[in-house]
């Protein structure tokens, strides 16, 4: 009988001096003890363990019983519960802390996905007790515990709606709140050190472990979570968790503004600098920034004196990181952060030298990807809105440089068209009294216009594909010819006109005529084929397969529709081009 075996081995061990227990002793204790507990004899086990005579045995071997204890406690059957709790408390008090720690963490690690929340909430207090017993040597153990706990907790699904957060079915919120309680005494310890010495060493081990914990939490789960504001959800455990993490960072001596500006710190050859990089992962800092500026978390411990342009500069690095991901949640956060950083800045104020910073160009390019490629329509729309907002904040020279850069690099007709529309607005603004500048009038305008009024492949340019760009360019040209009188020629367009005609208008006219002729011929032939035989439609040259399914051939009706719409498009281009040709002809042309 297990109970007898247990009593036997314990009695035998009582006689052994200096804790010279053999491996067999350990094994016997373990198997007998485990069986007793599993069979429900926890009351007897308890009485054996609390016996003073067995103190040494318990200290060395007690932790072995943790596994079976935890299983019983998780099952929550009431009969044995009080005894098992008592056994656990006793072990925590008397057992070797190092072994107990390992035993407890093993239980956390081995919890299956369905019982993570239960296991974690059960074992946090015991873990805390054990860690506090380690005294001055606890730092690395605290780190190990936090890392194990977080790894498990971050496996829990993140609530998305406010109802899900309230219901907390999978227990993430519970675990986060419990984790805050868990770290409290360690944070207090650091605060005491700060108080007594008026400072704390950056390398204080416990501080570093807490820092790691905060950084890790910021990246998981906080970066994934979309916090609800107090109006939507008054009591939010996740919001409280986020707030507390920022407060902890502040309490352990990490200044929030300094954390924010790490992204723009000049690289210095400081010993141990790489360690610094690892200590402050960019993703965590991105989350920190989003919490501060979008969710307004802990905003009362963040100084209100930072210059908005500086804040934007710091945040660009994080925005770049978020916008270079494909997950919609990251893109959403990136867009929100960008928007919030931009609206604090005055319109027309950002200077051109900011464009020399890598992020001020890479972010718009990421934004273009979102605007053109992201499957989610709300994100595409928002991306466009933020794109325009960013343009509005640049000063005139910076706008010029930005437009030039985008026209040279974007290779997307829709984006180019949008930029050209902005250029038109800038020219319009500059033509108003007192708004003159060198960038959208005068000598710098013409080089920019050359990028606008050009066909990438001459007359063979695919007009349909480049429609957006072509329409906007023509609209711009038409606008300028009407608005800027040739005897004023403020924009210089009239003196440039002959070049534009040669390089743009004539090839465009040629291309247009060719395309129209071609499509009209195609249209005629399809209509004729349709009349001749409806069944025996000529075999297509190619088939199209999507996801292993062949798409049905286009019916003649569909073909006709597509061709017709192409022809209409050409008519559209033609109407503006024709108007421009009229305007030019009607004016007295200067020497060409």
């Amino acid at each position: 009988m297990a109970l007898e075996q247990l009593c036997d081995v314990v009695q035998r061990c009582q006689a052994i001096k200096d804790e010279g227990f053999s491996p067999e002793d350990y094994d016997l204790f373990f198997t007998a003890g485990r069986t007793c507990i599993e069979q429900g004899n926890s009351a007897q086990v308890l009485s054996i363990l609390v016996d003073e005579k067995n103190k040494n045995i318990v200290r060395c071997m007690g932790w072995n019983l943790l596994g079976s204890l935890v299983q019983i406690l998780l099952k929550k059957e009431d009969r044995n519960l009080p005894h098992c709790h008592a056994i656990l408390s006793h072990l925590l008090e008397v057992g070797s802390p190092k072994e107990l720690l390992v035993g407890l963490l093993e239980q956390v690690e081995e919890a299956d996905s369905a019982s993570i929340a239960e296991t974690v909430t059960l074992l946090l207090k015991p873990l805390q007790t054990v860690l506090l017993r380690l005294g001055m040597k606890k730092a690395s153990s605290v780190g190990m515990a936090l890392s194990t706990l977080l790894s498990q907790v971050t496996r829990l699904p993140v609530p998305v709606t406010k109802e899900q957060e309230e219901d907390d079915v999978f227990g993430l919120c519970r675990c986060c709140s419990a984790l805050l309680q868990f770290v409290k005494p360690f944070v207090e310890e650091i605060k005491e050190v700060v108080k007594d010495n008026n400072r704390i060493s950056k390398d204080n081990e416990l501080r570093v472990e807490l820092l790691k914990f905060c950084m890790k939490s910021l990246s998981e789960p906080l970066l994934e979570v979309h916090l609800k504001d107090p109006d939507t959800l008054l009591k939010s455990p996740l919001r409280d968790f986020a707030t507390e993490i920022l407060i902890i960072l502040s309490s352990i001596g990490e200044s929030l503004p300094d954390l924010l500006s790490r992204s723009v710190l000049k690289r210095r050859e400081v010993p141990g600098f790489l360690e610094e990089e690892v200590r402050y992962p960019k993703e965590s800092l991105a989350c920190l920034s989003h919490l501060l500026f979008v969710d307004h978390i802990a905003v009362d411990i963040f100084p209100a004196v930072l210059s908005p342009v500086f804040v934007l500069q710091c945040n660009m690095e994080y925005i770049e990181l978020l916008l270079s991901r494909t997950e919609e949640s990251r893109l959403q956060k990136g867009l929100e952060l960008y928007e919030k950083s931009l609206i604090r800045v005055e319109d027309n104020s950002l200077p051109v030298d900011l464009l020399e910073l890598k992020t001020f160009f890479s972010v718009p390019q990421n934004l273009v990807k979102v605007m053109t490629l992201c499957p989610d329509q709300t994100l595409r729309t928002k991306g466009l809105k933020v794109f325009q907002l960013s343009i509005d904040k640049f000063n005139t020279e910076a706008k010029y440089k930005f437009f030039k850069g985008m026209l040279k690099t974007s290779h997307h007709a829709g984006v180019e068209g949008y930029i050209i529309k902005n250029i038109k607005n800038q020219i319009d603004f500059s033509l108003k009294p007192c708004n003159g500048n060198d960038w959208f009038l005068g000598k710098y305008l013409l080089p920019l216009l050359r990028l606008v009024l050009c066909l990438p492949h001459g007359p063979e340019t695919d007009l349909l594909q480049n429609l957006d760009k072509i329409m906007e360019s023509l609209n711009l040209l038409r606008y300028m010819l009407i608005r800027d009188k040739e005897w004023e020629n403020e924009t210089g367009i009239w003196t440039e006109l002959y070049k534009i005609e040669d390089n743009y208008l004539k090839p465009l006219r040629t291309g247009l005529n060719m395309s129209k002729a071609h499509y009209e011929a195609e249209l005629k032939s399809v209509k004729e084929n349709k009349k001749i035989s409806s069944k025996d439609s000529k075999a297509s040259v190619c088939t199209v397969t999507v996801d292993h399914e062949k798409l049905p051939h286009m019916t003649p009706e569909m073909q006709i529709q597509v061709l017709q719409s192409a022809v209409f498009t050409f008519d559209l281009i033609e109407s503006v081009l024709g108007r421009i040709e009229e305007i030019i002809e009607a004016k007295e042309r200067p020497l060409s």
Partner: protein
Amino acid sequence: MMAADPVRAWSDEQLKNEEVPKKDLIKFIQENAAHSFLAEHKLLGNIKNVAKTATKEQLVQAYNQLFEKKRFKGTDVDVVTEQVEAAKISDAPKETKTEPADEGPPKFTKSILKKGDKTNFPKKGDTVSCWYTGTLENGTVFDTNIPTSAKKKKQTKPLSFKVGTGKVIRGWDEGLLTMSKGETARLEIESEWAYGKKGLPDAKIPPNAKLIFEVELVSID
């Protein structure tokens, strides 16, 4: 005056015996004093912030003055601050055709409250540390890093940053360069060198707000 004057809520004894918490005192005074009185004694705004900046002695003093001078609510011609602020917003800002030149009169004023050592002045790029309290013109405290008790002061650090490099609002960058180590000054910064037309709604700073800071320059590195 229709209503009778407010009565004292606490006796001198109670005030001396530290029975009354600061927040209660502040609340009482805010509820019963005229707006101008509150503004003079810097008692406007969020009770928490006011508690941070006013000592118990100052509060008791204000409390007593309130009754001596009978500066209760309704006793002065209340300046309707919203209307004043609204008028400022509708003032169309002057049209500037290009970016304003860097030269031009400084958009802040400084009055020294406590002299510094007058020898150590920060240069651009130096790291300075300071304690500060920021208020709006109507006296509302919108930001401070000064903790309430001496004990907490040991735990918090003054704000550190590289001065003159555009990391803070221009009024600070320019203002701090004129201060010497140990100096405490009052900086009144026009909105152009603060948060301008946008303000900072997150921090309760309205558009076109002039900001007033009491800054103590603790150290220069």
